[in-house]
């Protein structure tokens, strides 16, 4: 029984989120006692992985200083980076393992907590089979932790079922790029962006979700480049767009098909490139014939002439880049959406050169590195396929096991939750994942969690999901354990241990190794440090697609990051992929992939006529476990709101600041309206960073892309009504909307 031991309100009262607004001792202490040291490391929030210096005093992080020498961001930071230090020395920090009791959680010793966890996991496996236990990982973990977790699930637990929250993030683009190119990485280093003549941003709220990329795009415009933005909302970067395409949620594919239609109709394709470096062009060319801009306009809501213009600019430029993110991926045709961008770049030869290419903007801190080395359900280290006998043999040799001991592919993150709900998976160990907030249809997720026979989590703050846990192992923040991550560009960078875990909290990797020992695998998890894990990871990745063999911590420090693949110690790394039209399939060619149009999984009808789309805001990160605890970031966007166009608002008698009930086929929630002209009138937007009654994912649906298994967060059918009264959580006074100037 994994119901929370106390009412949620009581758990929130005890474990937070509470605010932290100032460094230890307050700001006055800063001038009295300067920091002991500055540690050059990286921000924990988002895939940009900006270089930052953390101020450390008395083994606590007490502030930040820009790190201007780091080439990616050159000192620039977003508000999350500026305030990230406030997560350290936080009053909510878990300082000891916790065991669930009848009346809440009690502190426990490590022996008790670890023994209990290992015993319960083993009991479930003995009774119901190895695969009755699953492991959840996360893409904010260092690559060492992600690697370790994959090995732990497969060897120590012997379960097929390990997957991670990156399943909600980059998998559609990753799947598409693997199909088309044979490799899952953005092909261009970011310093290519200012060199492009056209940048086409589709489904990426760059200013809020990858703020540093804004400067790259602005510098492209300084150089005379044109900016095209396709989005249902006028996001902040559209203020300088040369062309804005107001695409209806769920119809990006039609827009992209029509753009390729124009390219081929007008003979703007790069025949020489297609012939020399690709396969499958003819079938794709045939499939876009039906998608003339007039038809696409009816589907997408983008005027035909704008589609024509976008296609011409992109194809006629000497150098054009496409940037895409979750807006394209979070669909039941997320893979197709990304493939359509790839097809456009291949057909126009806009790839494999300086300033030319399609690039995915990874969202999570280690969104790239976290998916390369074995915590995905179908992958082994080095971006190897778990079904490939050669890959299994290589990894088995590194691990010192026979290939048969490595389980086959398991279920993806949402599929694991479905299996828990069906009662097939009965035990779960989770780290760096808050599925109650981040998975779709949170009512379903809650039911599933309540069915678990055992639920263990490794956490630094008690997340809403962890309310359901039997045992909470107090793990480490990003700044408390050394390791590497891989940034949006494919640049492997070095995360420093700025401070040790406080009190009785422990490094995540230590916890995983201790559990492995208790599961009889001490020998294979005898890692004394992250460096030792990295050394094994280098070998395990050797010869794979994501080859890290030539990367060392020292090389990263000396070069300010190393772009993989880096197969040998004297290899400088690979900032730009596909140069000379060489792709990573055995024949060296890129594969055009057909993309079939289909409707979204939760289509609007007369009862639910409005499109709901969800996303992020600049001051919060993912499920908010960290940023909802940082006072100034919370002040910037304190509660979720629903963005509504005045035309739609008027139809429902809704004024700015009114309480509005948004209902879908699954649930309803009430929140304040932000009436703005910057969103399509058939669409409403809610940011998803909050839990419980404030959670946008109460409303979303569980349809998945059949290949990437990503949920369709970007399109749900909904209806609106003016609420009779505010919800129970409403603050007594109207919350300060972010439009107000803070005095």
């Amino acid at each position, binding site marked *: 029984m994994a119901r929370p031991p106390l009412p949620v309100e009581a758990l929130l009262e005890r474990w937070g989120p509470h605010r932290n607004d100032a460094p230890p001792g307050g700001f006055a202490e800063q001038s009295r006692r300067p920091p002991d040291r500055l540690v050059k490391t990286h921000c924990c929030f988002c895939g940009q992985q900006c270089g930052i210096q953390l101020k450390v005093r008395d083994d606590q992080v007490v502030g930040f200083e820009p790190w201007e020498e780091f080439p990616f961001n050159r000192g620039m*930071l*977003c508000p999350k*980076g500026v305030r990230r230090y406030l997560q350290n020395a936080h009053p909510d920090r878990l300082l000891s393992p916790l065991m669930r009791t009848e009346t809440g959680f009690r502190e426990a010793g490590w022996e008790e907590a670890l023994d209990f966890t290992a015993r319960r996991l083993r009991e479930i496996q003995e009774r119901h089979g190895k695969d009755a236990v699953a492991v959840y990982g996360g893409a904010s973990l260092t690559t060492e932790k992600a690697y370790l977790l994959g090995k732990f699930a497969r060897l120590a637990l012997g379960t097929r079922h390990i997957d991670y929250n990156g399943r909600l993030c980059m998998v559609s683009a990753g799947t598409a790029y693997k199909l088309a190119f044979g490799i899952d990485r953005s092909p261009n280093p970011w310093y290519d962006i200012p060199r492009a003549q056209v940048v086409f941003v589709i489904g990426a709220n760059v200013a809020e979700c990858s703020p*540093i990329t804004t400067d790259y795009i*602005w510098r492209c415009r300084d*150089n005379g480049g044109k900016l095209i933005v396709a989005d249902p909302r006028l996001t*902040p970067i559209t*203020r300088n767009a040369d062309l804005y395409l107001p695409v209806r949620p769920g119809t990006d594919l039609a827009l992209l098909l029509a753009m390729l239609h124009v390219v081929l109709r007008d003979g703007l394709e790069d025949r020489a490139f297609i012939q020399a470096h690709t396969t499958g062009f003819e079938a794709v060319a045939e499939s876009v014939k039906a998608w003339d801009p007039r038809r696409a306009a009816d589907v997408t809501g983008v005027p035909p002439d704008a589609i024509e213009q976008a296609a011409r600019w992109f194809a006629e430029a000497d150098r054009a880049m496409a940037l895409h993110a979750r807006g394209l991926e979070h669909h039941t045709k997320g893979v197709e959406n990304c493939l359509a961008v790839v097809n456009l770049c291949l057909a126009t030869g806009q790839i494999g050169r300086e300033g030319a290419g399609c690039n995915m903007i990874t969202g999570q801190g280690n969104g790239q590195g976290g998916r390369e080395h074995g915590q995905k359900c179908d992958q082994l280290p080095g971006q190897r396929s778990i079904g490939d006998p050669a890959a299994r043999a290589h990894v088995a040799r590194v691990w010192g096991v026979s290939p048969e001991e490595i389980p086959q592919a398991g279920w993806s993150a949402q599929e694991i939750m479905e299996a828990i709900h069906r009662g097939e998976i009965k035990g779960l160990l989770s780290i760096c994942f808050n599925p109650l907030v981040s998975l779709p249809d949170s009512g379903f997720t809650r039911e599933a969690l309540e069915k678990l026979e055992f639920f263990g989590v490794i956490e630094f703050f008690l997340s809403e999901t962890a309310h359901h846990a039997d045992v909470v192992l107090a793990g480490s923040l990003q700044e408390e354990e050394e390791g590497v991550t891989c940034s949006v560009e494919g640049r492997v960078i070095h995360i420093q241990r700025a401070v040790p875990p406080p009190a009785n909290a422990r490094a995540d990797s230590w916890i995983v190794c201790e559990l492995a020992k208790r599961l009889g695998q001490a020998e294979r998890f005898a890692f004394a440090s992250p460096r030792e894990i990295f050394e094994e990871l280098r070998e395990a990745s050797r010869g794979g697609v994501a080859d890290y063999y030539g990367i060392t911590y020292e090389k990263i420090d000396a070069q300010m990051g190393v772009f993989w693949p880096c197969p040998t110690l004297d290899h400088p790394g690979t900032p730009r992929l596909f140069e000379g039209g060489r792709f990573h399939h055995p024949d060296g060619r890129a594969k055009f992939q057909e993309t079939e149009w289909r409707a979204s999984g939760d289509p609007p009808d007369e009862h639910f006529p409005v499109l709901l789309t969800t996303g992020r805001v600049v*001051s919060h990160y993912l499920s908010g476990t960290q940023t909802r605890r940082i006072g100034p970031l919370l002040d910037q966007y304190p509660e979720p709101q629903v963005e509504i166009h005045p035309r739609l608002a008027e139809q429902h008698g809704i004024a700015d600041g009114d309480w509005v009930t948004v209902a879908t086929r699954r649930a309803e929630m009430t929140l304040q309206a932000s009436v703005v002209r910057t969103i399509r009138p058939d669409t409403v937007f809610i940011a998803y960073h909050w839990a419980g009654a404030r959670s946008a994912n109460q409303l979303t649906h569980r349809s998945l892309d059949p290949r990437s298994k990503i949920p369709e967060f970007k399109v749900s059918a909904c209806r609106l009504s003016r609420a009779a009264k505010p919800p129970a959580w409403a603050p007594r006074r109207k919350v300060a909307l972010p*439009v107000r100037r803070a005095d």
Partner: protein
Amino acid sequence: MFGYEFFVDPSRCIGCKACENACAECDTHRGAPMIHVDFIDRRETIATVPTVCMHCDEPTCAEVCPADAIKKTEDGIVQSSLKPRCVACSNCVLACPFGVPKMMSALEQMQKCDMCYDRTSEGLRPMCATVCPSQALAYVRPERLAGRREWPTNVFQFGNQTVTTKVFMMVPASETALAVDVVDYMWEGRA
């Protein structure tokens, strides 16, 4: 920092408030930002604008101060009011054409952006311009801006008052000075 100038380009601003957050971290004003970001009219547009002190050559704030508490350094930085002199009358707050000075009522003192004097005097760029992820706030050598669509100006016309500033504002290349009032375009004003 020799050879560096401060440029504000509102057209680059994405409203993220990294600047405000970073400013608030400064030891000298402890949690309170000295600069601000405005959403012009969120209902109508995503346009935002950051405001820092423009450091006027002839600062209106200092001119209207009855206690002579606001001083400008030799290198043109207009400072917060001198605590022993400031009478917390808010004349400066009301008079500044850019809306910069803040009355800190708990301290009974006007505080304002001093372009991070503590940082620039040690060869560091001002904090807001260092972190700004869109470089709407930039502290760079002027040649870095060559070839931009916008052009720097430091001449502002407020009615009959012409204000020149240390900080530059990026404006459309056709403009040489920024005028904000109908009066500025009227014949009568020029007589």
